[in-house]
């Protein structure tokens, strides 16, 4: 026994030394803060950093954002080592560390993709004025006074409106369920657009929203989906990260409209369509601006027209007849630009007119701000 232990210790030591040596290579020859050596930034030498809250295996938000990264790489002809990803970064001090590491590794532009990163991005952006920081879903760039801080998002509500049409036509009980993450403007704006889409083709439709209290908790998402089905919903929508609502809908014999990714392979008998993003448009634009030495817009948010968001292919076997036509009609209306989703008259649950007839509420470019609960939508009372 004694010998066994001794050998184990020696083996572990050897392994440890080996791993230290093996890791060391990467550490050397890193360029310093590009701000200190202002050389010409080109597509050949630009370094791009990403900070993500999870990794692509979530098959949702990060997966989809990473698809944008891959598309950007292809479009701009970037090499593998020009992009540094920091996956699974929590929204705390670790985010700041990750951002600083990216800055020190010579990134010229850094994208932080989760809402909760914003305060950390602001902090780090101050210390590296020559590096561009782009934060998704945030709202503080405008007021921060920093030239290198930018926000971006998109008019995802337009895509949600289109996906809502599929839900509104499919529901037979005129009751839609919605698995939401947090009672938060981005979510509320999303489900309101979804509901308005459904209502545009089915005036009697009602919707029940329940929150999981987490962006990514598949177990709660499944349980909430089942609770909604038990309450009689026959189409579910979602604003959370996993496929759990889709598969729960399939198991419960109802239908589902997803978010972030095409969920037809996960739930072929339930998934009607999904509202999806194409982040590459922004990434390509921002990187090109850095190379050209131009300024990145402080607040950026394009929509359906520009191809930043859309819906995934319809599941032809199960969508209600006429869905594609109705969606194309709405799409044409939105792309033409003379109409948008939040057009009045819109009345909230207390009977107040929040958008008057003939008026249209426009979301700001980044960070949605709609937080009225419309008539016909039931949210938990808190």
């Amino acid at each position, binding site marked *: 026994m004694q010998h066994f*232990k001794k050998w*184990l210790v020696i083996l572990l030591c050897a392994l440890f030394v080996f791993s230290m040596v093996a890791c060391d290579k990467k550490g050397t020859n890193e360029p310093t803060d590009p701000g200190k050596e202002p050389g010409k930034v080109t597509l050949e030498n630009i370094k791009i950093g990403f900070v993500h809250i*999870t*990794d*692509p*295996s*979530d*098959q949702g938000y990060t997966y989809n954002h990473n698809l944008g990264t891959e598309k950007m790489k292809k479009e701009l002809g970037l090499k593998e080592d020009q992009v540094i990803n920091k996956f699974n970064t929590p929204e705390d001090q670790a985010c700041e560390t990750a951002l600083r590491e990216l800055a020190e590794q010579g990134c010229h532009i850094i994208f932080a993709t989760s809402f909760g990163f914003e305060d950390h991005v602001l902090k780090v952006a101050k210390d590296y004025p020559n590096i561009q920081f782009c934060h998704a879903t945030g709202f503080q760039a405008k007021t921060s006074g920093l030239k290198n801080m930018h926000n971006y998002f998109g008019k995802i509500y337009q895509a949600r409106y289109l996906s809502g049409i599929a839900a509104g036509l499919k529901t037979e009980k005129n009751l839609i369920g919605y698995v939401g993450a947090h009672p938060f403007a981005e979510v509320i704006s999303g489900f309101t657009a979804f509901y308005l889409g459904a209502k545009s083709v089915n005036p009697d439709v009602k919707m029940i929203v*329940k*929150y999981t*209290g987490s962006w*990514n*908790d*598949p*177990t*709660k998402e*499944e*349980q*909430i989906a*089942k*609770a909604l089905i*038990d*309450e*009689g919903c026959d189409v579910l929508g979602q604003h959370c990260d*996993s*496929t*759990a609502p889709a*598969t*729960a809908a*399939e*198991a419960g014999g109802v239908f589902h409209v997803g978010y972030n990714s095409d*969920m037809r*392979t*996960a*739930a*072929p*008998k339930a998934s009607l369509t999904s509202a999806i993003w194409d982040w590459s448009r922004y990434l390509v634009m921002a990187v090109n601006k850095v190379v050209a030495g131009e300024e990145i817009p402080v607040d950026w948010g394009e929509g359906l027209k520009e191809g930043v968001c859309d819906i995934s292919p319809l599941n032809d076997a199960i969508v209600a007849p006429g869905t594609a036509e109705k969606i194309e009609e709405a799409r044409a209306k939105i792309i033409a630009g003379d109409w948008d989703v939040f057009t009045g008259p819109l009345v909230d649950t207390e009977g107040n007119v929040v958008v008057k007839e003939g008026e249209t509420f426009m979301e700001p470019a980044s960070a949605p701000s709609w937080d009225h609960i419309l008539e016909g939508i039931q949210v*938990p*009372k*808190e």
Partner: protein
Amino acid sequence: MNVLNIIINWLNAAVLAGAPLLLATSGEILTEKSGNLNLGVEGQMYMGAIAGLAGAWFAEQWFGVGGMIPLLAAVLFAFIMGCISGLIYAVLTVTLRANQNVTGLTLAIFGTGFGKFFGEVLGHKAHGYVAVGAETKAVFGNISVGKLAELPVVGTLFFKYNWMVYFALIIAFVMGWFLNRTRKGLSLRAVGESPGTADSAGINVTRYKYIATVVGGGLCGLGGMYMAMVNQKGIWVTECVSGYGWLAIVLVIFSTWSPLRAIYSSIIFGGLTVMYMRVPIPGLPRAIYMMFPFIATIIVLIITSIRQSKEHAQPASTGLNYYREER
């Protein structure tokens, strides 16, 4: 929705939420009865989850059929992987006498990483979602008992579950019988209470600790498989275990180290975790609802410590490694 419906559906959801907890809790009780405080249940469940899903997925690919064969593969792989995770723990704490808390926590981190890593690998292999076919989804769905499930009230309460719910119940009953009614169970409890005494009585302490920890790990693995195959319907989702491993450890305390009490406490616990989704109490914030299971655990802890009943206490040597030389 009338009140009766809400309550019946809530109970149904409570049982569904409680079943994976019951499996993992039974496993953890078995482990703790041998004196090993294994805090790595979360990791063990992740390992079981990915192994079970991978087993089902590969079985579908290789044999080209869905249904029973992938189901058996999932059970087998998840159980074996859970056993391996238990074995890692047993080797480190029983043979090498590493600190139990540290080993358990490390196992939790390791197992979580293990599951996520191989989930990702599998995802690359599958070019997108790792998803089992409709037939395999169906065998993990509600069992078909014909007209019984259609019965009002009784149908929803007793016959609308997947097979693993009944399986978890059987495991808990068998475990209760084993611990309280068999000689080997008595020996195992002796090992957990006082390994020195057990050793003097001629009980092989090391063997008992190993077997209990390994089989306990296997049950945790099956609990993990429930999360992947039943909750997520055979799709790999990164966060599929969602902290249920930690809940299982809490539930061991809640059920005061008894697999039989774990049956109803897992249902209570499951019911409390899903309560906010189903039972609206006007004006009560969701954050308070979410505390319910833990408040209940604290209350149980306080009550059991006031009563100081030996029946309801943690096995005395839990968390301590046994050194024969220091008897």
